């Protein structure tokens, strides 16, 4: 029985994922047709054009998928370490053998094609981390274990940063979503999200004045957020302590009173009131922790004080630490700088392309913005523009839905894994996929920073396609063999 199952893994493959994979692949290839098609040129199958090449990459990817499904899934666990360290070596060597392409040294020339090792390192890292967490007695709440796992992720990440591929490196942050599933305290994730929120709001509205006062909207709003988040954390981690009953009305009264005073009597910077409130709250919490000997009070106090400190350092960092072009990018992203010809050009053009699609789009290969090359990198990082322009809202919403279905299906498949190895690996694949979709589609719609990472299965290029195929089908192979492990 067991032997038969390993002999015929195709019988147990999750066909929903395979189907979604094939549909996305087809949509992707058609989008490349639309993006690269030039007027009067209709031969998509020529090796000389990108559509023809992409067909070859797709063919290779499908063969790769088939080969993976035919392998013995026991090997993944055992070979994970070797694969990982092999990739690390490759990543170390890469910058020395790679040619400089637009400032990045990440492409290795194999003679017949160029390969980006970073795309495959994700898969290796996922396997290695899965193997690590799968070890008996491993818990992420153990700081040493957590450091080990984080180290496995940060090593390739750092190596990729050295290749000047910051975008690909940031993808490794996706592993923290998997860590969260595996027991990393939610407050870490929450703190990270909160930090992003503070940064965006604080910087974006730093120069807007709150009506009737002398304070900036950004500073005010972030302090309000810190106050509310702190109260929320107290609710979750130290309920029933009367803390909220003191500080919620106190805060409301102080802020209301300050706003009224500033509005009708003497205008002043009301942020000071909030700042004092937050500091007061932290001191109260420290005093509580001393009295009750409870670490959680101290941690919340650290969160509140840390958040406040972060607010005042972010502004400093933006203006003093970052290079002018980096600052400009951030300002453009936050809509503070309408630089439609410079840094904002790509995003502006891609928004125009998507926006001009309307409900039903302009029709396959009828997109004018993409065809006339208004959108840069339209067949790689900005491929989603073509979908938006040519297939309209229906098409682009459809593609988004397909990705969502695939992600939800991967969560479902991961949860049904009998082994921690399978589950961790599944969540890693899912997280990386989600991160790519989140950043890439958000980027073309002007919602997330322009980080040059491809849209899985859509963007032109073999490395990315093979990397995702490898990752996904290894998981499908593990999933197909899950029953044997029971």
């Amino acid at each position, binding site marked *: 029985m067991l032997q038969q199952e390993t002999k015929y893994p195709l019988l147990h493959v999750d066909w929903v994922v395979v189907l979604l994979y094939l549909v996305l692949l087809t949509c992707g290839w058609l989008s490349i047709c639309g993006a690269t098609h030039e007027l009067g040129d209709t031969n998509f199958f020529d090796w000389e054009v990108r559509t023809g090449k992409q067909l070859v990459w797709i063919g290779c990817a499908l063969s790769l998928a088939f080969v993976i499904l035919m392998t013995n899934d026991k090997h993944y666990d055992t070979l994970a370490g070797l694969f990982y360290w092999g990739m690390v070596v490759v990543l170390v060597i890469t910058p020395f053998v790679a040619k400089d392409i637009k400032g990045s040294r990440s492409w290795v020339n194999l003679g017949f094609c160029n390969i980006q090792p970073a795309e495959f390192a994700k898969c290796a890292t996922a396997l290695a981390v899965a193997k690590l967490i799968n070890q008996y007695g491993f818990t992420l709440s153990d700081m040493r274990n957590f450091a080990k796992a984080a180290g496995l992720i940060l090593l390739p990440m750092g190596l990729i940063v050295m290749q000047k591929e910051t975008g690909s490196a940031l993808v490794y942050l996706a592993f923290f979503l998997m860590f969260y599933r595996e*027991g990393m305290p939610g407050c870490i994730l929450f703190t990270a999200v909160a930090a992003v929120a503070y940064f965006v709001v604080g910087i974006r509205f730093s120069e807007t004045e709150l009506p009737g006062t002398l304070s900036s909207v950004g500073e005010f709003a972030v302090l309000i957020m810190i106050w509310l988040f702190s109260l929320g954390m107290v609710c979750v981690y130290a309920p029933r302590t009367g803390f909220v009953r003191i500080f919620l009305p106190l805060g409301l009264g102080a802020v209301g009173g300050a706003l009224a005073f500033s509005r009708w009597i003497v205008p002043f910077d009301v942020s000071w009131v909030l700042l004092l409130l937050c500091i007061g709250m932290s001191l109260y919490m420290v005093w509580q922790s001393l009295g009750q000997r409870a670490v959680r009070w101290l941690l919340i106090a650290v969160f509140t004080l840390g958040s406040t400190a972060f607010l005042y350092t972010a502004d400093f960092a933006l203006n003093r630490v970052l290079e002018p072009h980096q600052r400009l990018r951030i300002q453009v992203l936050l809509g503070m700088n309408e630089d439609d010809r410079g840094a904002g050009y790509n995003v502006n053009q891609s928004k125009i392309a998507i*926006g001009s699609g*309307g409900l039903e789009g302009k029709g396959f290969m009828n997109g*004018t913005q993409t065809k*006339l*090359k208004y959108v840069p990198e339209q067949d790689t990082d900005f491929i989603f523009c073509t979908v938006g322009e040519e297939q309209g809202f229906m098409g682009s919403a459809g593609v988004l839905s397909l990705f*969502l279905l695939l992600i939800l299906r991967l969560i479902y498949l991961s949860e049904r894994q009998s082994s921690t190895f399978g589950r961790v690996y599944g969540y890693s694949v899912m997280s990386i996929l989600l991160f790519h979709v989140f950043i890439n589609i958000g980027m073309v719609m002007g*919602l997330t920073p322009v980080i040059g990472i491809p849209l899985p299965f859509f963007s032109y290029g073999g490395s990315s396609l093979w990397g995702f195929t490898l990752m996904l089908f290894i998981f499908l192979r593990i999933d197909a063999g899950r029953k044997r492990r029971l």
Partner: protein
Amino acid sequence: MSVSTNRFEVRKFVIGGVAIAIVVVYMVRLFTLQLWSDDYKKNADSNAFRKDIQYPSRGLILDRKGRILVYNEPSYNIMVVMHEQRGVDTLDFCETIGITREDYEKRMTDIKDPAKNPGYSRYTPQLFMAQIPAQEFSLFREKLFRFRGFSIEKRSTRQYTGAIGAHILGDVAEISQKELEEDSDHYYKSGDYIGKLGVERSYEKQLRGVKGMRIMLRDVHGRTQGHYQDGRYDTQAVPGKNLTLGLDKDLQELAERLLTGKLGAIVALEPQTGEVLCMASAPTYDPRIMVGRDRGKNHQRLSADKMRPLLNRAIMGTYPPGSTFKITQALVGLQEGIIDPQISFPCSHGFNYKGLHVGCHGHASPINLVPAIGTSCNSYFCWNLYRMLSNKRKYGSVQAAMTKWKDYMVAMGYGYKLGIDLPGERRGMIPNAPYYDKAYKGSWNGLTVISIAIGQGEVTATPLQIANLAATVANRGYYMVPHVVHSIQDGELDPLYRTKKYTGVDRRWYDYAVAGMRKAVIDGTCRGANLPGIEVCGKTGTAQNRGHDHSVFMGFAPMNEPRIAVAVYVENGGFGNVYGVPIGALIIEQYLNGKLSEASQKKAEHFQNMHIKYGDYER
């Protein structure tokens, strides 16, 4: 393992929720980008489409014999794309097209000024300078490659075959801001040409044709990448239609020649059709000066001229009709039964009644209708009007009688615009009962307003209205609305110009008016119009006004098969027979015979050289 895992299993919902939340936010974003507004779509179109406008050739204007009056000549516009215009040697540029540095700067500023150039875009060609003549243009074309961002657009300018007909033909010029705002179809773009005066304006739609448009795809570098959708949405330019005018070029030339050195107007109509055979207004100007870059300067000079050469006096000048108006009085009186052809009225050097005196010249008395018209007896027509306005038995009140009288005048084409196909026609003035009630505070009678009987007082009319009266008499009771255009290529004339307008006076009464006008020519006031071999009917007029009297003539010929009706107005020309009659006779002779006899040619030369000295008063 399983204990800790189970504790965290609920987190799959958090993670799934995050994924769903991201997709929902992105869907909303897609919705706002793609469906909420079409700003992005417009932006995309302006990005990718370059609309090449194909200008149609404007229709030609021909005279009634098919001779060309107005045609097209190629000229060139200099266009500039501001976005691409960089590093141009301004000095060289200005020298090549012959403008000053300041002029260059001003043009550049004007292009960017949204108030002056509403459709401004940095990325599309904007008009820098219009109508470069061919010789300056060739130098510019040689150097064009040096002037980045500049390009040439081929257009055409109007040209005139002769110096005549400025008021009728009109001209074209760049569309004004006001006209752009009034263009509800949004057909015109800033820099387009539009008819400004004359038939160029009134037949603008037919003459201009329809612009075509080629939608070209333009890539990010501004290079053309072929037709959008293989030209499916391109439209072809439709050439403008040719206009054939009723105008006779030779007649128009003569009319303008005869008015040299005078102020006034000559209008000749073809009675059966209402077509304008000639329409001269003096002083006039050479339409050829209204072409090209000097148009603005010349137009300004003409506008400032005290003699007002831009005024088409034939349709815009309102004068007292004088004695020509007596014909209308006779017809109304006959139709209303106030007079009959046999009844005679006394004339003792004028109309004397209840202490009122209207003077007249010496002639036999008493006098009946036909000789009264022939000698232009003031008294006869005063009696006629007085009897009408004081006939309380028939009308009930002077107001009712006045209203009746006014209705006849309006039916004969007075008091309102006739509706000629030229811009700017004036309506003249026919007073009505409420007008006099207001002027005399309700206390007035036939005697108060007696001067309107002889075409003086409050009554005014345009020379066109007088010519129309001649045509009505020639037609014995109806007129066709006068119009300049004979036919439009592949088109129909306005039905207004194809309908007979009856005046409400019977044909038999017109026969008496004709007889009177014939008598005036044979042995009355119009003897100067008695042409050999042509039965001319005429009526003089001597219109009193602030200065010296206007010399007026109205007539038609031949009597029984009228082919031309004419009105002549010479401001301050004195008695009707001084200028009006001989000029009218020359017009009739030229038209009916196709040429002037030797004697007449001498006469024409004589009148051409008779200049009237005009004072400085406002006209």
